[in-house]
């Protein structure tokens, strides 16, 4: 009689062979994260630049020239001067030539010379509301600057000095590369394991496994172990690229990060296992894994948008998204130099979540086949 260890190991070996015999999948598992990391790392940038600002200037004084020069100085805008009638402004938006239109009236310089206030109009294409808000704020600041320069500085009662910690240059890559680690790991782990058991079900080999002396938990364990190894290798690869290519600082302890990464991988794998015990076919398993990882990790974990800004209900839902706990870990260790003591709460949550998912998976596995 074989020991439980031996039986588990046999399943693990079988699964390993299955992976190794499929070099295409293996290549995808390692190439995909690298390509995605590089693309995302460079593309994810919320700093708005080159906003096409159409300027329609009816004034011919040096005042308006000065105002426009204030807009020229920044990377935020790229100015152009279309020759259009006021009734044709809508076309600039429809043809996507302009994101905003600034209209300077013909009495602009005259009014300012006489010490009177004067209005300039700003029309913003708010189809993208976020960009629209940024444009409005930026133009308002620029106009304020122009006003200040006009009348000479008024002395302020006090001053503000801003210090930015951990990422003084506000580099997007520092924020997104650790985030991508979380996204890629959960997708690889959950997707791979979710189809691993569903595949046996679909091809009818699960029954064969079940009538063998192998216990159920041994099947699950044996199936999971190879993917822990794969995902862990992926994690190392991503970390390496992040530090070497994107120069993301690493201020904390590598061992702490690797330990908690392992915990995160286990959580993601448990999610995959749980899905595969529910799903009858690979297609269903994949759909479920895909929809429970990709978009929730992108939007309900703090990957892009801060959790605090979400509506209350979604904040509650986010408690079951594993990346929610892993993101402070990976960002904290890399950027803030967090220690294990700092991260004990997310670690505990991650552990509980893994346990919960595994319990559900084992129960389903027993019921579904009993």
């Amino acid at each position, binding site marked *: 009689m074989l020991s439980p260890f031996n039986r588990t190991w046999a399943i693990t070996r079988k699964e390993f062979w299955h992976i190794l015999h499929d070099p295409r999948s293996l290549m995808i598992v390692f190439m995909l994260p690298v390509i995605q990391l590089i693309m995302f790392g460079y593309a994810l940038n919320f700093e708005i630049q080159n906003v096409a600002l159409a300027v329609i200037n009816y004034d011919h004084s040096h005042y308006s020239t000065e105002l426009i020069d204030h807009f020229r100085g920044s990377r935020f805008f790229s100015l152009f001067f279309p020759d259009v009638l006021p009734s044709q402004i809508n076309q600039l938006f429809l043809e996507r030539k302009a994101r905003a239109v600034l209209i300077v009236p013909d009495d602009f310089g005259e009014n300012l010379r006489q010490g009177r206030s004067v209005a300039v109009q700003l029309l913003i294409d708010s189809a993208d*509301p976020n960009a629209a808000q940024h444009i409005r704020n930026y133009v308002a600041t620029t106009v304020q600057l122009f006003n200040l320069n006009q009348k000479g500085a008024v002395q302020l009662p006090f001053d503000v000095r801003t210090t930015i910690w951990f990422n003084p240059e506000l580099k997007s890559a520092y924020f997104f590369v650790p985030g991508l680690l979380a996204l890629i790991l959960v997708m690889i782990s959950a997707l791979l394991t979710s189809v691993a058991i569903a595949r046996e079900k679909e091809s009818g080999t699960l029954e064969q496994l079940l009538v063998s002396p192998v216990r159920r938990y041994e099947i699950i364990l044996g199936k999971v172990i190879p993917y822990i190894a794969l995902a862990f290798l992926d994690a190392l690869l991503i970390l390496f690229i992040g530090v070497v290519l994107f120069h993301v600082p690493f201020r904390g302890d590598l061992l702490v990060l690797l330990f908690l990464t392992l915990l995160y991988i286990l959580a993601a794998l448990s999610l995959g296992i749980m899905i595969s015990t529910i799903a009858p076919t690979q297609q269903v398993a994949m759909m479920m894994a895909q929809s429970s990882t990709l978009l929730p990790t992108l939007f309900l974990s703090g990957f892009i948008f801060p959790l605090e800004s979400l509506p209350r209900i*979604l904040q509650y839902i986010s408690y079951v998204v594993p990346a929610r706990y892993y993101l402070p870990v990976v960002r904290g260790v890399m950027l803030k130099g967090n220690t294990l003591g700092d991260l004990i709460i997310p670690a505990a949550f991650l552990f509980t979540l893994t346990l919960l998912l595994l319990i559900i998976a084992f129960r389903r596995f027993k019921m579904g086949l009993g």
Partner: protein
Amino acid sequence: MQAILALMRKEFLHVARTREMLMLLLALPLIQLIVLGYAITTEVKHLKLVVLDLDNSSMSRQLVQAFQHTDRFDFKGYLSDEAAVGNYLRQWKAQVAIVIPPQFHQDVRRGKMPAIQLIVDGVDGNAAGIAQGYAAGIIQKVMGDVALDLPWVLKQKRVSQTGQVVLLDRMWYNLNLDNAFFMIPGLVVVLLTIVPMMLTAMSLVREKELGTLEQLMVTPLGKHELLLGKILPFLLLTFLEMGGILAIGQWIFHVPMHGSYTLLALFTFIYLFTTLGLGMFISTITTTQQQAMFASWFVMVFAILMSGFFIPIENMPPVLQQLTYLNPMRYIMSATRDIFQKGSSLVYLSGDFLRLLIFGVIIFTAGIVKFHKRLD
């Protein structure tokens, strides 16, 4: 024709028999839509704020109070020393800290211009930039209020009597800057890509994996009929799905439709050639459903990222911007959003339409040719 119908029936039966599948196909995208429709907001709110007030005067409290009366900041309390400030920021308990120096109010009255320290956690560069802007705005307002009480500031104000430039801004298309109006048409496109592409690829590969493709090939079905019978159900499903998404967009999120539904359907139809073609193509270069899933996942992430769905294309480095022209999703994304929000007619969208048509023809033909070669 009858053969196609028979195959379609088989495909439908397959989908309908696995109840989970049908539920997933229809329900999952809709659930995602509802959740994400609420979630995707680029507004930054409830930033955690702590204060180290070394002055503790009515003036410093006035400053802190200004931060308590807004939902942009959540005031988490006063700290006792600098070390605590460091700990709060390091342990994610605060994102913004304000340090008010000792003798702040005396220095202000004497015109010595003391400096308040604003410390921002820069890990999330975007939120940090916004937080800085919010804080500066609030502090500036307090400055104005404080200045009114100071005799030496009043004198200066009377001297500077030049005209001011006032900015009148007007939002076009989305007056209240509602994010759902922007994101839901985008989500429509994302779901229209995921569902047909992944399902076509996996359904074709499944026959290969289970060895039933050979069985289908020895039936009297022609190759075209085989393909059509496989694809048509997903085409129908996609349109069904789209109806559901549009209904939810209107009923729950009140997304206005300023353009024509016919035009939207036309664009969707043209775009389906691309997604179905990609699905076919993926099915020919993969041998297992797992591979097909990974390949479509890769295409999808690339397509979503480079489409302007949530990262404006203008923000990307020039090389990546050039790359987005090769992404069919870029065109359907901008066209769908323009149809919804601006009510653009085909005249303004002809560029997008033409490119989508070209991509559709090329990708669909490539998919069919590759698929046929595989069968021979």
